[in-house]
């Protein structure tokens, strides 16, 4: 809501500077987004009296005006000729700046006549779109005086963000009420009188078929209007308030709406068939061309204003083109009504049309102010367009006023400010909410425009606003619990810390996927969006890998070649019956292991990913991790595995299929993993237990086994560890060898073994026995031959 301060000043005296007023209003619940000075770009324009207008010697369509600019006479070439001698006009001398003109004016020759500046049209002054005439001032002024001040272009405007529950603040009057409450100044109601309810005009009837959706409809007939410009001051105000001035009839309804908050609609009475008004639901398939020249198909839930034959307006939203007032209109039917807010909201949402009228109706207008608004508009039509009120028809009544009780002790307790009953009453009184003390509390009578106040807490807020939130002290509740993370929340944090500490950057990505990315993991059925924003978010990601791949792609494109990223976030997939939301952790490693000298030039591969999984699993204290079968797309069929914990699959690790890397323009191998966080964290161990650390020296043996190259090293390591039992302190695979002199299809796995127990030094025979046991186990299980000791 844009509130011109000059206009506001008619309703309440404002002694504060605009900046101070804005600050006070913000603290009072009327947040001021910004202070606008619409005519900031205007300077140097003065009032001039036209002395003479004569033909331009060199051009038929131009004329030359001689004007008295106060201190001297000047001549300007003008393109129109609506001004005559004696008229006062805005004159922009060389050096002046205008909002509607880019550069400061200069003296120049126009077809052989020197023009010293220009006379200004309303458009050039930024008042309206009217560029067909020079603005002729209505009021007396001295030539040479500042034109901006004379016309009222010094206006300062507060742009107020009206909170969604405050219907009443969408008007100058509503804002003035709050400013009056805030400053203690009196509220004035200039030019607003009660309705001059004349006799019902002949032939005009109003029938409300759906009183729930239209509790009140007041139709006023105004006859004999003549189209023309509105007074300059009114045009300036409309512009300052953000509405474009058009002509007097339209301007009058808009002016009254901005002033009082009641939307008004003017029908051309001659174009209404009847002439009677019917307020009813739209019939199935009914259509209406609205005044924005769009044909609208109406639904049965839509309320329409109709004449005897057809719909002529969508109630509370927009009028119809056929019955719109035009500059030929003589007689008017002026509508001032109350429509049920939710119905207007539904229709406005369905039509995708939010208008000045609908945004007021869907919050709720003042049911008692209908007649005042109609009277105000009628008075303006009389003053600006010569119309004459010819009676009205009023159907329906405002509902009775609501009362709401408030307990002063409840208000004190919620606000944390001690308030007596009389303080509460006074606080409400400042907001023009009358309240009386009764047994057990205070009963307030809610003004009809405060549709938002329905229960005690609403009044508590009003009391708080009235005394000022600034009075609320700072206290701390006595919390009787220790704060902290749950064990599971701590582990999820540790997961991120482990990966960050291992030299990966955490990333965030959008969980949306375009159509072609949705089937990224074939086994996971994607969820599509019902109302996507664009093609990029057709559905929800079933995996974090596409987001990481895209981030890697961007980094590589920016010459960051060593890319190590991870993300922890929810992923989504269709389930039966319910969709499944699963938190996952994924990492991606590609390019050289290090980027700067003397970093490793080695490229990341699958073992970096498996190593990282082991690092994370160990770091969380989870046990029983294993690598299972090949997972299928998008993984590389020869370089990937399902990750298991205690035999249960929890995710995948490996390199992505070269086809996938190519699709994301990643030149080398792309190693990655993706695990479900839930089971990973659930597998995390208890606090670790101490085991004895031996003070005795280990007995060391290096052994190598030759076996089929297809036997997984992981299985061999596991069997070796098991067979080594409690004597084997450490068994490390240190060499893998294939090729001559070994036969085709065989390979050698070399292990470095340390035997050691906590309580004594092991003897050679003991160790030899155990090495033999290991060798037998590996021979039995894998056909492995012990090669060297």
């Amino acid at each position, binding site marked *: 809501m844009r509130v011109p301060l000059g206009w506001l000043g008619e309703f309440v005296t404002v002694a504060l500077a605009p900046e101070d007023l804005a600050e006070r209003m913000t603290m009072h619940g009327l947040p001021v987004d910004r202070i606008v000075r619409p005519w900031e770009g205007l300077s140097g324009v003065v009032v001039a009296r036209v002395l003479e207008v004569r033909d331009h010697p060199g051009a038929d369509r131009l004329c030359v005006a001689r004007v008295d600019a106060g201190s001297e006479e000047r001549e300007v070439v003008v393109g129109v000729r609506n001004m005559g001698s004696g008229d006062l006009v805005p004159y922009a001398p060389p050096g002046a700046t205008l909002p509607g003109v880019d550069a400061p004016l200069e003296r120049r020759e126009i077809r052989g006549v020197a023009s010293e500046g220009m006379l200004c049209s309303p458009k050039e002054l930024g008042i309206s779109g009217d560029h067909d005439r020079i603005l002729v001032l209505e009021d007396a002024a001295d030539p040479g005086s500042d034109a901006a001040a004379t016309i009222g272009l010094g206006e300062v405007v507060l742009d107020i963000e009206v909170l969604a529950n405050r219907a009443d603040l969408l008007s100058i009057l509503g804002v003035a009420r709050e400013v009056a409450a805030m400053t203690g100044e009196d509220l004035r109601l200039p030019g607003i009188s009660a309705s001059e309810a004349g006799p019902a005009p002949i032939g005009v009837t109003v029938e409300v078929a759906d009183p729930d959706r239209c509790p009140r409809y007041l139709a006023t007939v105004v006859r004999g209007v003549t189209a023309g410009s509105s007074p300059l001051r009114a045009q300036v105000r409309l512009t300052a308030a953000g509405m474009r001035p058009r002509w007097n009839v339209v301007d009058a309804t808009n002016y009254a709406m901005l002033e009082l908050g009641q939307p008004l609609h003017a029908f051309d009475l001659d174009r209404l068939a009847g002439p009677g008004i019917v307020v009813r639901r739209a019939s199935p398939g009914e259509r209406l061309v609205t005044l924005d020249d769009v044909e609208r198909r109406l639904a049965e839930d839509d309320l329409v204003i109709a004449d005897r034959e057809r719909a002529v307006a969508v109630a509370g939203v927009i009028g119809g083109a056929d019955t719109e007032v035009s500059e030929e209109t003589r007689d008017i039917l002026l509508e001032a009504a109350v429509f049920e807010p939710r119905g207007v909201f539904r229709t406005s949402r369905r039509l995708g049309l939010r208008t000045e009228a609908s945004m007021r109706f869907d919050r709720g207008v003042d049911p008692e102010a209908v007649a005042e608004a109609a009277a105000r508009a009628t008075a303006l039509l009389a003053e600006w367009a010569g119309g004459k009120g010819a009676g009205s028809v009023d159907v329906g009544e405002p509902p009775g006023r609501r009362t709401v009780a408030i307990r002063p002790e409840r208000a004190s307790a919620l606000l944390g400010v001690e308030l007596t009953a009389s303080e509460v009453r006074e606080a409400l009184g400042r907001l023009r909410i009358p309240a009386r003390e009764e047994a057990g509390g205070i009963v307030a009578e809610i003004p009809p425009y405060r549709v938002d106040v329905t229960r005690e807490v609403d009044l508590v807020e009003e009391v708080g606003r009235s005394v000022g939130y600034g009075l609320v002290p700072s206290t701390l509740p006595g919390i009787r619990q220790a704060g*902290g993370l749950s064990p599971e929340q701590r582990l999820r944090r540790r997961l991120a810390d482990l990966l960050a500490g291992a030299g990966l950057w955490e990333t*965030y990505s959008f969980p949306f996927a375009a159509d072609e990315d949705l089937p990224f993991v074939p086994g996971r059925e994607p969820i599509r969006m019902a109302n996507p924003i664009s093609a990029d978010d057709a559905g929800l990601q079933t995996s974090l890998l596409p987001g990481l791949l895209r981030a890697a792609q961007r980094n590589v494109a920016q010459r960051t070649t060593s890319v190590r990223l991870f993300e922890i976030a929810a992923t989504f997939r269709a389930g039966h019956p319910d969709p499944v939301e699963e938190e996952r952790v994924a990492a991606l490693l590609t390019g050289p292991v290090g980027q700067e000298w003397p970093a490793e030039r080695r490229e990341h591969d699958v073992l970096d990913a498996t190593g990282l999984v082991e690092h994370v699993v160990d770091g969380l204290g989870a046990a029983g991790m294993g690598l299972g079968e090949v997972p299928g797309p998008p993984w590389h069929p020869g370089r990937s595995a399902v990750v298991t914990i205690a035999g249960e699959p929890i995710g995948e690790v490996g390199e992505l299929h070269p086809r996938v890397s190519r699709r994301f323009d990643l030149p080398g191998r792309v190693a990655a993993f993706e695990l479900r966080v839930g089971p990973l964290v659930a597998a995390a161990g208890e606090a670790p237990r101490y085991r004895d650390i031996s003070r005795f020296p280990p007995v060391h043996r290096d052994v190598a086994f030759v076996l089929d190259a297809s036997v997984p090293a992981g299985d061999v390591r596991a069997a070796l560890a098991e067979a080594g039992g409690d004597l084997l302190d450490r068994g490390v695979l240190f060499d893998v060898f294939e090729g001559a002199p070994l036969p085709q299809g065989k390979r050698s796995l070399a292990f470095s073994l340390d035997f050691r127990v906590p309580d004594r030094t092991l003897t050679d025979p003991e160790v030899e026995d155990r090495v033999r046991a290991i060798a037998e186990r590996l021979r039995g299980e894998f056909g492995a031959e012990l090669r060297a000791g």
Partner: protein
Amino acid sequence: MNDVQAMERLGEARGQGLAAIETASSLEELRAAEVAALGRRSPVAEVQRSLGTIDLADRPRIGREVNRVFEDLRAAVAARRVALEAEAEADVALTDRIDVTLPGRRPPPGGLHPLTSTMRAVVDAFISLGYRVSEGPELETEWYNFDALNFPPDHPARLTQDTLYPDVPGDLLLRTHTSPVQIRTMEAQEPPIYVVIPGRCFRRDTPDATHLPVFQQVEILAVDEGLSLADMKGTLEAWARAMFGPDQRVRIYPDYFPFVEPGAGLDVSCFLCGGRGCRVCGNGWIELLGAGMVHPALFENTGIDPERYSGFAAGLGIERVAMLLHGVPDIRMFYEGDVRFLSQLARSA
């Protein structure tokens, strides 16, 4: 051996030994000289061994002379060693050097995302005030996201939420705020409740410099006997001081959200200019939180007695805090995964 011979041998041994020690040019040579002069086969040791053949009367005198020669030689070795070691140490600067300004071998760099570290800082500040962490699903129902939070059906407020709906049976949506977790927590737990609620939320926004369809939010919910707006203000003031520094001030003013009444907005004094007013804040205050007293309708919807209990809630956007803290000009940068951006803002949290 007689005493004269013995004295002669000792004299020679002393002279030769000292000469060899003093001319040793390396620690190795010194060790050899030491062995030659003081070892088991050295002339002095030989004299010592043959003391038995010397007249009883001369023995003490010769014995003393043996010890004296030993001591002199040992002292000479020690002195020479100190000298040689000093020489070697002086040398190491020339013989074993490297340009230490070559790049060090760092472990691969990595770190938490700035939104993670900012979120943790916010959450931890509330934890230190006694709060626990409550979480909930991102795929929510209309009931938890709107109805239970006192958004009436067909109310304009729903329009402003611009909600994303998945195409699945049922009334699911992508939550537009973390507030549904308020309802879930109040359903699951009896008061007193003091929880902080972090989480990812969604809005049907086209990305630009200040809007994203995805954002991180954090809320608090406190429900207990006798809580007031003053408790809310004090709590958020304590939080702001933990977050931004001990001189922080806060101010509250009326604001509107369907799930709180009275509703409040909360500004913190600008932590960039100390509240004097700057390009970022304008008037010294930064608009940071939406807050208020829990609306009684929420208590009614979750079976908590609104006459016995009252509560407050407050929420803020993490991206906005991170942008202010780090001076990030464009919100989209948080979601692009550019390592050049991430490494700038890395913090160990």
